[in-house]
């Protein structure tokens, strides 16, 4: 049985359903990220686990025990906020010891635990400082130590790194992950940054409009996105519209160029499907190893150092592809005619793109999202 289980969670504010039929099982010691755009309900699910919101329906269990009826103070679930939320009137040491003091831990033991926690977050010299005397990164580490000092069953982090600048964000997320492994604490981490989620999670829950669009390991989410939404939100995939030519041979046409895929689909000839291609799966130039080839015109070349990102236009659609920098092989010039090559198995058919799928057209998941990100 999973350590933390959310079953058919629904949350409505008035008449708007913010979370719909949300199911999730988290194992002990697992690090799960909630990834999704603003307003998709990540915080709301997290707050229901913490006890700050009541689910409208569904159950939340920890170690098999229903916790939905418990107030936050009785759940023993640690929480780290985007805004740090350190107590301004208490020193760093007092902040970290706050929960221990409430739990009635004797002073000597408390002091030892506070010292140990400050050691773990590498700020042992700052015990007597006040929060306003610390940098944002330091404050967030103290908030982490404060949440962990009481040995909670679960640690919840709501975009803990969003208020920090890029460099600290990367180093702190690695620290959080290392600390989480070291303590073996079951953790849920909310973010809208796909790179953050991919780099530190055991599993990712991609959320879209209050539902879990896909749950899986980063490798799985990135390489086999199930829906157009997941594909466009995770990674920098190219999303293209294709017309089915031959259902049996899995032949498609993209802007009049014939391609094949090795992934099965249900759409019939003449119907349109959405397909995805990762930028690193495509190369430039003709090959003769059974790859698909599409002729196009180079529209943009971005030299990024070790990687050169090229945008190629066919007719109405473009794709971006990444090639490694090679001193012996300069990148193509703008306006040049090139061939884009990729393997049939790299052309992913997206669930939400088939005509049968109940995806309303024109939602926020249009293909250009990913393409413009690349440009």
């Amino acid at each position, binding site marked *: 049985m999973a350590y933390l289980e959310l079953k058919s969670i629904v949350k409505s504010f008035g008449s708007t359903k913010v979370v719909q039929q949300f199911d999730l099982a988290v194992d002990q010691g697992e690090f799960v990220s909630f990834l999704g755009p603003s307003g998709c309900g990540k915080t709301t699910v997290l707050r229901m686990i*913490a*006890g*700050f919101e009541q689910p409208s329906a569904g159950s939340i269990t920890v170690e098999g025990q229903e916790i939905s009826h418990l*107030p*936050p*103070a*009785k*759940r*023993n*679930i*640690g*929480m780290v*906020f985007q*805004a740090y*939320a*350190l*107590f*301004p*009137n208490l020193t760093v040491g007092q902040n970290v010891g*706050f*929960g221990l003091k*409430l*739990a009635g831990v004797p002073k000597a033991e408390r002091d030892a635990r506070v010292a140990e926690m400050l050691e773990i977050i590498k700020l042992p010299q700052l015990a007597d400082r*006040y929060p*306003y*005397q610390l940098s944002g990164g330091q404050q967030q580490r103290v*908030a982490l130590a*404060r*949440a962990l000092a*009481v040995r909670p069953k679960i640690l919840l982090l709501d975009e803990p790194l969003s208020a920090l600048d890029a460099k600290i964000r990367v180093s702190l997320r690695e620290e959080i992950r290392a600390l989480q492994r070291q303590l073996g604490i079951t953790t849920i981490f909310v973010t809208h940054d796909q790179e953050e989620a991919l780099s530190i999670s055991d599993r990712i829950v991609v959320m879209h409009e209050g539902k879990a669009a896909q749950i899986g390991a980063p490798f799985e989410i990135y390489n086999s996105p199930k829906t157009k939404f997941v594909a466009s939100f995770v990674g920098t995939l190219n999303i293209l519209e294709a017309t089915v030519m031959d259902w049996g041979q899995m032949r498609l046409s993209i802007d009049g160029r014939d391609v094949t895929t090795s992934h099965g689909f249900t759409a019939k000839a003449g119907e349109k499907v959405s397909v995805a291609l990762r930028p690193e799966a495509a190369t430039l130039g003709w090959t003769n190893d059974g790859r698909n080839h599409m002729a196009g015109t180079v529209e943009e070349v971005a030299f990024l150092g070790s990687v050169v990102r090229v945008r190629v236009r066919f007719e109405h659609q473009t794709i971006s592809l990444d090639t490694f920098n090679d001193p012996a092989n300069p990148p193509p010039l703008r306006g040049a005619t090139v061939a884009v090559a990729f393997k049939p198995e790299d052309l992913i058919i997206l669930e939400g793109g088939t005509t049968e799928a109940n995806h309303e057209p024109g939602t926020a998941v249009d293909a250009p999202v990913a393409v413009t990100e690349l440009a």
Partner: protein
Amino acid sequence: MKTSSVGAWVAVCIGVFYLLMPLMGTVEFSLRMLRGTYSFEAYKILGTGEFQQSFLFSMIIALLTIIVSVLIVVPTVYFVQLRLPKLRPIVEFITLLPLVIPAIVLVFGYLRLYNSSSWLPLTGTAEATNVLLLFAYVALALPYMYRAIDSGMRTVDVRTLTEAAESLGAGLGTILFTVILPNVRSAVLSGAFLTFAIVIGEFTIASLLDRPVFGTYLQNVGAGKPYNASALSVVAFAITWASMGLMQVFGRDRRPKVAH
């Protein structure tokens, strides 16, 4: 100098003059008890037991008023802000009532409600009347206390701090007294200054409830001994300011202020 700044200086001087003149006049008058010479003769009244008792009584009532109103206002503002933001206009209106309803009306209401033949004869004994006086002063202080604490609490992220404390196992009492109150300390203090000043100078309610506060004592003295009354006014003024200064010194946030 530009004419606009000349105008500003003139305005400031008129303002200062307007405020200081009566005070200086009172000081000057209080020194003229002995004919033809300036002396501190009038100030000898400070040595009398009546003055000391009445002033001490007023100070104690003022401090109690501050404590009671903080205990009422801090949780009220906290709940309005956190759970019932829609009630804010109503609560604000209620806290403004003491400014609209004259003290004399308030005290007559009290006397009707709590007279010795009523269901709750608070005016029956001196102790109970003191309690009534205290509550009357809490009502008078309400507009100032509420406003100060409300604006103080708006500068604190009450919701997140509450949730952080809750997730660490804190109950309501702990949150109010160890998380919220310390962080609105300067707001509480500024409310306390005003309350203190109001209570020390209050006359109407105390007089009609017949309590021996400083205001009624001063009025009694003033009826027959004008020089002494002026001296008392000056001293009361000085002590009030000194007390507020002390509250400032001891109640202040001793952490150095640093910008983020």
